[in-house]
């Protein structure tokens, strides 16, 4: 009976809807950020997810956070696909967008560390400085005692090598 009262209550209470939003958005934002890795896109996708859900369902409060996350992943997938010259799937993007129930190692830090360790030392350093510590190319050049052009070439070779390693690992994952 308590459950039924709750069901009737939220029909009449705007606060319930607001409460549901406040309880879900921080987790959803973090989930999206983990995939897109920038604040602007994470905020856009978070808002678009709520807009979509609020427009579609009479009682969105009934939806679980898992449903919100799946909707968000589909929004990201569509946004990325719209910016591509071909409609084909990109396995590394798909790995980033794996749902909660799917096991993908791509977002596992141990796995990424392991892949990074397979790179030459200077490539590891450039990625750490540019991507993890967010230093500019000039700052990175200074810290590594190299020219800016050299840093640009080094980071490119590092990312290409890493991409290759990750693609091979994904192929192996799919085979097993």
């Amino acid at each position: 009976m308590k459950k039924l009262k709750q069901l009737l209550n939220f029909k009449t209470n705007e606060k319930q809807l607001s409460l549901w939003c406040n309880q879900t958005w921080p987790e959803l934002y973090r989930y999206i950020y983990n995939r897109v890795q920038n604040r602007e896109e994470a905020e856009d996708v978070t808002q678009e997810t709520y807009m979509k859900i609020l427009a579609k369902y009479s009682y969105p409060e009934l939806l679980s956070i898992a449903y919100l996350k799946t909707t968000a992943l589909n929004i990201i997938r569509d946004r990325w696909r719209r910016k591509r010259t071909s409609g084909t799937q990109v396995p590394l993007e798909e790995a980033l967008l794996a749902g909660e129930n799917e096991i993908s190692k791509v977002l596992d830090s141990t796995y990424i560390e392991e892949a990074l360790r397979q790179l030459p030392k200077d490539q590891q350093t450039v990625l750490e400085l540019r991507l993890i510590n967010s230093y500019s190319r000039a700052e990175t050049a200074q810290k590594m005692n190299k020219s800016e052009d050299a840093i640009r070439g080094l980071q490119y070779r590092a990312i290409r090598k890493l991409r290759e390693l990750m693609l091979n690992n994904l192929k192996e994952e799919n085979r097993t």
Partner: protein
Amino acid sequence: MRYNSNKLKHQTTEEILDLMIDTLNKEEDPLKKITPPVGVEESEIIATVRTVKSMKEPQAPNPDLGEKINKLASQKWQRQRKPLKLGTLAAGIIVLLALILGKSLWGGDVVLAMEKAVLNLSNYYGTLEIRTQNAVGEEWMVRRLEIWSEGEKYALRDNNGLMTVNNGEQKWQLKPEKREVTLLPPVPDYTQKSFDLKDEAERAKKYPHSIEGRENIAGREALRVKISPPGGDPYHLWIDVETNLPLQLRTAVQNALQTTYTFVSLKPNVQIQPHIFTLKVPDGYQVVEENTGQLVYSLKEASEISGFVPVAPHDSPYRIYAFAGKIVFDYGKTTIVETPAEKPLKIAGQGAWGQIDGQPVEIIQDRLRWQQQDLEITIEGPLSVKLARQLAPNLILPDKNLDLAKKAQVKVEVNMEIAQAEQKQVDAGHAPWQLDPLFVSHVFVNLQVTPEGIVGEPKIPYSAFKIEANTGVEALVSVGEGPIRKVYLKKLVREDESGIWSVIGYDSSKDDENKPAW
């Protein structure tokens, strides 16, 4: 900073990567800054950068994000949920009492719980059996389907191995018997509607229902719920007691046959292997391509392929497909199909009439069809009205409360028992002309002319009848010759698209002749 598209075209991947890293470091959306689309290689490189960056902690959002989301929720509330009025309050109390006193009588909580369970499904894998029983109790299996469903993606495999897949980008059928893979147009897609659990939950909520008992279905305990569409034969739905998901559906007996759909297994929220939704042509298979269209990224491309200039709504579609002579805008569950208008629009008999700048719009459930700028436009799905208004701001939907019957000079009494029996006949697939107000008027007027029955060609031809108004519930038909000038019709048994039309009144032509000619 926005990257100059011309400049970017001449940049090396090395330079693009550098710019991408800078953009991500500034917490900005890298793809928003680029005008030209990127290739697969660049996409993979950006994905690799995002993966490495996932090792650091997420940045907190701007402090007003929560406020913005609450504003969206508040707008929805103001738009859709009016404050409680006394009448609503009274209705609420009645519902509450019904739930307290007659939970098993109405089964409202069960259906709400089912709706909630279905909404919480992010994906599922199940096996659906479709069986038919005849009047003497003989039963046989029609089809057995394995179903993988995840958001807008689904895959179906039947007992003959025929596999139908739609992954949101492509739709195809794998036919082991013919060793063939057929590529199909991905949109509009009607396959999914045949098994969609959400549709079943919505239907159950829409019609009166009551719990009849508990039964064991496919090894699971389930509640048997009777669903009674107004004026139609009731059918039954079984809901899993543990998961609240629908387990079985049994249709009413129609044409001495009854069909039962049973999920013999249903696993909600499981891990679905990505290869299920990936198109891979097995060795030795031939690829057959039906007019599948081409995924395009701009209206210009769509226009070049289709050979005409489309009209597009303000809201961006998820995808655009261009065919020779056709363009499809895909908005998920809603699609817009545009083709050149080759002949004048003929509105289907069962369709209600709307208007755009004096031109008719056919409305059947959530599908709108009209002609505009030499194009025939069909929008189907939950967003149809919203998107139609973006294309044609002057869209006028029919007013269902015209009360045309009041205007009829001669009222016709309808025997509701006969009307209900006729509705059941039509539900079973007989006499479908009763869904067409023109045809019903045609039969009615000719029976007035020849009360002994219509033999051979009717006296008043079908071409003399013209729809003047159709709100979907009421209709007015004018007659060009004979003793009756206007026929008034109404859906008395059921007001949706499956409801039959009954004549409730008419205006006589003789009255016109007696009228002074001023």
